């Protein structure tokens, strides 16, 4: 399936765009998506952690994703 991934914060810089499209097997889990993204964008892995939100819910590694889902990558933010 083609999945559109929304980027927040520093993820926009890492992806070089406010959203990117990735190819993933239908029903793949969040861990698989993270591995794929981290391979394509090694800086993402260097953050140490970031949130994957699916349909505005925090996605655990084992949650599966389908084509209709809205997926967002939300990295940590430090500024104050």
């Amino acid at each position: 399936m083609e999945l559109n991934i929304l980027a927040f914060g520093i993820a926009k810089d890492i992806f070089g765009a406010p959203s990117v499209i990735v190819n993933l097997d239908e029903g793949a889990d969040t861990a698989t998506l993270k591995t794929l993204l981290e391979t394509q964008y090694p800086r993402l892995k260097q953050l140490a952690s970031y949130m994957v939100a699916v349909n505005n819910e925090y996605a655990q590694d084992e949650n599966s994703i389908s084509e209709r889902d809205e997926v967002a990558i939300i990295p940590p933010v430090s500024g104050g």
Partner: protein
Amino acid sequence: MQDDWLRYSCQMALPGFEASSQALLQNARVLIVGAGGLGCPAAQYLAASGVGTLGIADFDEVSVSNLHRQILYNPADVGRLKAEVACARLQQQNPGIKLVPHMAKITSTNVIQVIDSYDIILDGADNFETRYLLNDAAVLAGKPVVYGAIYQYEGQVAVWNLPNADGSRSPNYRDLYPQVNATQVPNCSVGGVIPTLAGIIGCMQANEVIKCITQTGELLKGKVLLFDAQTMQSRVIKIGDVTQTNIKALEITEHIPTVTAVELKEGLNEDTYTLVDVRTDQERDEFDIGGLHIELDEVEDNLQEFEDDKTYVFYCSSGKRSGEAVKLLKQKLPGVKAYSLKGGLQEWNLN
């Protein structure tokens, strides 16, 4: 109605906001950590609304580049301690409340003691180390944290570690981000921040504090709000009802060795130090004081540049990024001597 409550009459006219709600505010003790972009507006509104005891924790001094978003300070305050200036200003705004400045840096040694006399902690810090320290200490002490963070045009708000009916606790910052590599996430002095975003997020934090104290409304519990000032869109992400973390101890705050601008100038004359600029290319183009140039997020990939028999002084604009570089070096190359230029180039240029 007490006579001195005329000040609060317009909030006491609210549905669900009783005289008892105002008394709850008056008896509440809130610690604001970071009197910067988030802490300034939050403190203003918490003082205005009559929170009885307001602690302001910040060890930093007002600098010129703060003034575009840290609205409690005037150019005349540059160089003065933020906590002192903020408390003086807020005391004028509301003489009926108690203001407590905390000028010591919050570390693993003092954090439990500092938060002990407060009911709620407002996290307006500008670095991950303080955010994790506050979070973990608040979890250990069983106190809620009202979290806010900003970068460029985007902000986050949440309320951590609230009690659930069954005795468990709602999620905290480590449910969202278990740990962060601070050298990989730019702060506001690198990526910039729009001042109005600081105002919006800081006021949202104050709003959650008031709701938390007065037990009104629906808190951002088990949720995080994301706000984008460019599009004015916001969304609320559900995290869960119960924390999955198991925080048992604080991470020990690392001491960062620093040199002052005066010491550095002397040392450079005697050829003691090798300088390392960790700022961006753009900042380097405008002005530099020489040495190697390795941007903070590239330091980890360039550890082979550092030699055991040399002494390095890292520098950036304020001392924040160079401090992160020194921490990284101490961890990865414990044999190399590394210092951070205290106060960064801002301090260098004043001397």
